[in-house]
């Protein structure tokens, strides 16, 4: 882990941010997908007074499906533009993985920063415990990106990418979704940190395990 490693990982990240800012394709797609889903949900269920459990489940369902539309993009676009080979020459696989992972985390963080206020407004949610709510969302984002970044690299090598990405991600993400929904639930009920303790532990453990497993296995996918 020399300083060269960090510099190069940040260079990969900077390159992805720069190309994204030229078109804003994945951020637009991600946000519009999430926003449309939110509006549909709010439009169809807005008349009903929904319980907290339903609200927290809906929030994560929106995030899950929106992220399925965009998170594989970081690797798919490299394969499509035939730039993957150049990237292989530029740095070690772990460097690429780190850059892409941070990029996905940033992408989802921006999405959630835009979506969460809209969600609170549209679904008429009262949040008694904002710090806990935000911590659960942030941990959820890290786990979600940690597990799906390598799956993005996997589907980039396959033929039918869109559907396959969701199919491959869902079973792996299920523990995360259960914990994130439970934690959000605790934040919306207002049971405080004690009520969400197990969920937060599970979210942290999940993110650590998935990012470690990805870091070990990424070499095989990237050079495979």
């Amino acid at each position, binding site marked *: 882990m020399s300083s060269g490693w960090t510099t190069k990982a940040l260079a990969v990240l900077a390159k992805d941010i720069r190309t994204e800012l030229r078109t804003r394709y994945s951020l637009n797609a991600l946000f519009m997908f999430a926003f449309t889903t939110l509006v549909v949900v709010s439009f169809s269920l807005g008349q009903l007074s929904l319980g907290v459990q339903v609200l927290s489940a809906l929030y994560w369902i929106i995030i899950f499906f929106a992220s399925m539309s965009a998170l594989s993009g970081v690797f798919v676009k490299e394969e499509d533009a035939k730039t993957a080979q150049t990237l292989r020459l530029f740095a070690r696989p772990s460097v690429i993985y780190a850059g892409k992972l941070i990029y996905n985390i940033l992408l989802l963080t921006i999405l959630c920063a835009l979506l969460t206020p809209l969600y609170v407004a549209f679904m008429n949610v009262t949040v008694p415990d904002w710090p806990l709510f935000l911590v659960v969302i942030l941990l959820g984002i890290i786990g979600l990106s940690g597990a799906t970044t*390598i799956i993005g690299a996997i589907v980039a*090598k*396959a033929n039918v990418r869109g559907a396959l990405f969701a199919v*491959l991600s869902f*079973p792996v993400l*299920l523990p995360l979704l259960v914990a994130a929904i439970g934690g959000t639930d605790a934040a919306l009920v207002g049971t405080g940190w004690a009520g969400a303790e197990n969920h937060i532990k599970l979210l942290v453990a999940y993110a650590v395990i998935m990012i470690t497993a*990805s870091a070990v296995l990424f070499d095989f996918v990237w050079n*495979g």
Partner: protein
Amino acid sequence: MVRKYLQIGLFVLIAGVIYFSFTTPAPQQIIGEASRIFYYHIPMAWLTVVAYAINLIYAIRFLKTRSELDDFRSHWSAELGTMFCVLATISGSLFAKVTWGVYWTWSEPRMLSIFILLLIYGAYLSLRAAIPTPERKGIISATYSIFAFPTVPFFIFIMPRMMQSLHPADSVVDKNLHFTMGGTVLPIFLVSLFSFTVLYFWLLGLGIRLHKVQLARFEEA
């Protein structure tokens, strides 16, 4: 020749299990006749785990050796495991209807975990179908199978603590690791477990032999 006798032996054992599992008294008096499914359901669930474990072992080996045969073993074991997984899910679901009154419930951790296994290996098999080059197919799918594995402990160890289980925890062994089955139940169960396990390994070997023959023919042509 030896193989022939082993096949006949396996046939006799499984026929014996089928015969005795229906003619002896039901294993569980309260549930009654329906509890006979236990002779088949537990071996199926066990073989699901065995087949997927072998898939994982050969996936790891394949990444080291890059031998096409290891990839085939891994893939074939996943297909067999999926067959056993479907059988275990169906037999478990039928038994759930009889004993708990519902075919399916999400509040039961073992139903959840076997369902997740089905999803993971369904995804694994569709991933294989979507990659055209054989070499890459092996590497990518082996990676996915290893990557998906760490989620399994979440369902086996963590989820059951977060929800109540309806499964009898002491149907095979109790808390002091003594067998809880009496009379004719234990021998029939053990023979069933043994013969279905042999059946799985026979199917595994059969597929591998067939694959080798096809490879040899392909090379001749």
